[in-house]
């Protein structure tokens, strides 16, 4: 009886795992096939891998430029977001008072604001900017530098930061900024790693705002190019799958190398 129950568990988990992994296998197989075979649902690897990759990079959609655009935006966003959010998370937690606690709660409300409600005013706002206006990487970066989620994440993690060290630092004559840069930052490395992963991923995969803010072809990011290829009248699926594999590689590598930080980053928002 118990054996049967266990068997059921393994079968159930195996089916769910296969369903979860299958689309990955599918994209890897499909990137080696011609578009016709992909549409027919062929599960046999083909010989068109190099042709698909060549088509991808030589197509007039400028895939290589979009890789560069995405990387640039994701890296700059991550660096700036980490600085601003860790400053804020630290500031709200270490220098707690009633007024700032209230401000913090108001900032948290911004998590409930749907992006759909912001896109029109943001579009109008950036269209009036002379520098950092529409069609620049800055227009994509600026609205995502400071998210309430990341501030909350840093604040939650700062709660477990030993406050005695701060006093020790002050007695040693460090000023408040030095305490932050010399004591806090080095101790919180894993929090920074987790935050960097979340931010990099959401920036690398961001679709809606870049779709609106980046109208000119030479500024487009990878998700925009993949979306354009996928919605073309007769999509070349072999080429698209090659593009998707390349687009997924950075996040997949980060995931496998830093699985612990990855999960910690996700969970950081609920604990405490």
């Amino acid at each position: 009886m118990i054996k049967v129950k266990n068997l059921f568990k393994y079968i159930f988990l195996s089916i769910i795992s296969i369903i979860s992994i299958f689309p990955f296998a599918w994209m890897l197989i499909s990137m080696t096939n011609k578009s016709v075979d992909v549409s027919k649902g062929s599960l046999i690897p083909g010989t068109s891998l190099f042709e698909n990759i060549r088509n991808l990079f030589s197509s007039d959609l400028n895939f290589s430029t979009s890789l560069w655009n995405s990387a640039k935006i994701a890296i700059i966003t991550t660096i700036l977001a980490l600085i601003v959010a860790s400053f804020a998370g630290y500031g709200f937690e270490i220098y707690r008072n009633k007024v700032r606690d209230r401000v913090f709660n108001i900032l948290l409300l911004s998590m409930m604001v749907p992006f759909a409600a912001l896109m029109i005013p943001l579009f109008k706002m950036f269209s009036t900017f002379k520098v950092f206006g529409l069609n620049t990487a800055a227009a994509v970066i600026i609205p995502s530098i400071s998210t309430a989620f990341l501030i909350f994440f840093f604040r939650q993690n700062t709660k477990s930061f030993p406050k005695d060290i701060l006093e020790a630092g002050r007695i040693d004559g460090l000023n408040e900024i030095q305490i932050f840069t010399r004591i806090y930052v080095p101790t919180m490395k894993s929090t920074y790693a987790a935050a960097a992963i979340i931010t990099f991923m959401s920036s690398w995969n961001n679709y809606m705002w870049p779709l609106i803010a980046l109208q000119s072809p030479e500024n487009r990011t990878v998700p925009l190019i993949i979306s354009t290829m996928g919605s073309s009248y007769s999509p070349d699926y072999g080429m698209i799958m090659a593009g998707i594999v390349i687009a997924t590689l950075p996040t997949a590598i980060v995931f496998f190398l830093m699985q612990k930080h990855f999960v910690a980053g996700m969970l950081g928002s609920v604990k405490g």
Partner: protein
Amino acid sequence: MKKSRLNKNYDRAGWLFTIPSIVIIISFVFYPMIQAFITSLKSGMGNNLKFVGFANYSRLFTDQIFKKSVTNTLIYLVVQVPIMIILALFISVILNDKNLKFKGFFRTAIFLPCVTSLVAYSVIFKSLFASDGLMNNFLVNIHLISSPIEWMTSPFWAKITIIIAITWRWTGYNMIFYLAGLQNIDPGIYEAAKIDGATGVKQFFYITVPLLKPIILFTTVMSTIGTLQLFDEVMNITKGGPGNASTTISQYIYNLSFKYSPNFGYAAAVSYIIVIMIVILSLIQFKVAGDEK
């Protein structure tokens, strides 16, 4: 005397650290929110807007596409979120069994969909669910269906395709939260329940679910907010079609602002409906869960 000067010093440091984020969030979230509301009271094409009061809001009641997009969004919410939450809970309870082998493999495999971007997996699903695609081939070959399903071109199946896709992408994500929650439950509670003769099902409903309630609430609220803003998948799998059979509110706002001749005022009014829905639904969920926070 000295202490108060120190406090003042700390207070200044407190603002110094927090001001950049406060300024950015006000400028790029709260200020635009107010702008959106003001815009929603105006009408006209492009940037040539006239003040019309609440006319945009009353227009919503007679707009068939708007009604369609709200209905669709609510269908996704009511059907997909419970299925995903229950599935994720079920998987995590099974995975939490300490005698289970290959636990790490199963967990990684089920979580893997989270590394894909929404656009990337949408395009993959679009190819899998094409009318002559792999999904139909498979179902016909195992004789589950006799003729191919119109995944993209039937109003009913288009919604099902979207629901299957979202469930694939997000179940593992929710599972991770439940697994973390389950680790904090003292195994002794289950031992005691076993001695008292509680079956697995009873343990699930009387121990697991109540103890995970805060996390279930959190994931439900997050999923609700996410589903109400559903955009990437619909744009890239069905384009909202056939007709507007699978469109969502977010996509309708996008279409109103950037695809049809731009009507920012009306689109802003539609966007406020999502804001109101999110606030109401979150409040209801907190109420139902009886959370005091």
